[in-house]
């Protein structure tokens, strides 16, 4: 299959089509609505399932194999906010709070983009390193911390009387459910290993793709609701939300390749770098940087970058990783 075929295969997967169906539901003003408690339960399931499966793989590796990729992931997560912030401030003309808020989102990661990458690799029969979910877990927080540090240097954190406490906000995401379930799942998976996992596999593995479809249906609705705000975002941020993922993706793929990761692994590192958070980061940013406008950061990450990565980004990062592997 050439790149175009691969891109088509991605576009026509049940996962992506369910996302599209969610968008269509909003456009048709359908009364389709996922009850909040069910969405919350699906999130818990997905994070735990990602963690468990990753933990089982992790148990087969020696820690040293994870060292370099782990460092690279944290490094990328911490570096992205630096230039994103500078760009948003100087070229985009955003306030300190808005620039830091957007930078936090792009420094952090999106778990659903990550699992869509895994599904895409599985569908194209491309192997990848078993510790990938651990990369997801460790990339969630550092980018947010760096962005908050930038905001504090700019003097905007602590301004607000009620919420503006960055340290508390960071503590809250560290103990937040997505980090907890990912890390908890990794630990449980690593402890019980393949044999223990077998007993819960029908739920956490066999059902994964189907449940992810339902989750993407809901995310399609949420993204489409935000798409109405698209005009408010302005041309600069729209361009930022489309171009930066490509640059970050390329960076991640190149670094992944250069530290010896497989084609699949490099593609995953690229996807993580390219993805922007839209669940954990918004909550943390809202509390610590209330002056920042969610109409910017959430619309950019959820309504622009997320659909872009799902549709065109994944095949692109994959193609780049394959090309690098072949070229060198």
């Amino acid at each position, binding site marked *: 299959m050439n790149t175009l075929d691969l891109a088509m295969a991605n576009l026509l997967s049940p996962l992506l089509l369910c996302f599209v169906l969610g968008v269509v539901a909003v456009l048709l003003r359908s009364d389709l609505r996922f009850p909040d408690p069910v969405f919350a339960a699906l999130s818990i399931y997905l994070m735990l399932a990602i963690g468990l499966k990753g933990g089982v793989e992790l148990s087969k590796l020696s820690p040293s194999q994870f060292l370099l990729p782990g460092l690279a992931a944290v490094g990328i997560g911490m570096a992205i906010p630096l230039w994103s912030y500078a760009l948003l401030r100087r070229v985009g003309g955003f306030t300190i709070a808005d620039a830091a808020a957007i930078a936090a989102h792009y420094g952090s990661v999106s778990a659903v983009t990550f699992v869509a990458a895994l599904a895409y690799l599985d569908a194209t029969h491309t192997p990848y390193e078993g510790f990938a979910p651990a990369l997801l877990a460790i990339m969630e927080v550092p980018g947010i911390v760096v962005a908050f540090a930038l905001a504090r240097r700019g003097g905007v954190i602590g301004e607000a009387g009620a919420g503006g406490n960055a340290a508390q906000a960071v503590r809250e995401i560290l103990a937040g459910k997505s980090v907890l379930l990912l890390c908890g799942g990794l630990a449980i998976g690593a402890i019980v290993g393949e044999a223990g996992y077998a007993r819960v596999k029908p739920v956490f593995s066999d059902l994964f793709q189907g449940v992810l479809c339902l989750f993407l249906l809901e995310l399609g609705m949420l993204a489409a609701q935000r798409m109405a705000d698209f005009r408010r975002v302005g041309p600069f941020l729209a361009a930022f939300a489309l171009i930066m993922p490509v640059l970050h993706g390329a960076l991640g793929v190149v670094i992944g390749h250069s530290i010896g990761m497989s084609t699949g692994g490099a593609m995953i590192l690229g996807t993580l770098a390219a993805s922007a958070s839209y669940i954990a980061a918004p909550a943390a940013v809202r509390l610590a940087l209330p002056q920042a406008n969610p109409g910017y950061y*959430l619309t950019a990450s959820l309504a622009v970058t997320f659909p872009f990565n799902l549709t065109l980004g994944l095949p692109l990062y994959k193609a780049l990783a394959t090309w690098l592997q072949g070229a060198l």
Partner: protein
Amino acid sequence: MQTVAVKLVTIVAESVLEKRLLLAVKAAGATGYTVSNATGVGSRDMRASTLDGENIRIETLVCPEVAEALLEVLVRDWFPHYAVIAWISDVAVVRGEKYAG
């Protein structure tokens, strides 16, 4: 039945604030509160929940001084930055000393 007049303060806020807002309610001197879920639309549109419009609704029975103190905190620290509104009603309860703080 002998009843006592107290204040019922109702606060509606974006749900990401729940934990901290309840601390503020307690800090203002409330001895209890009741929380329920709601959605809503207001004049601002500044919330950051992925699930837009998801709110919490806090009700607390307090004496007039606590109501006053709570409102001041809300106006100073919360109203300027967050999607929060609040209103106060006069209600009657039995055994008002429970809500005196």
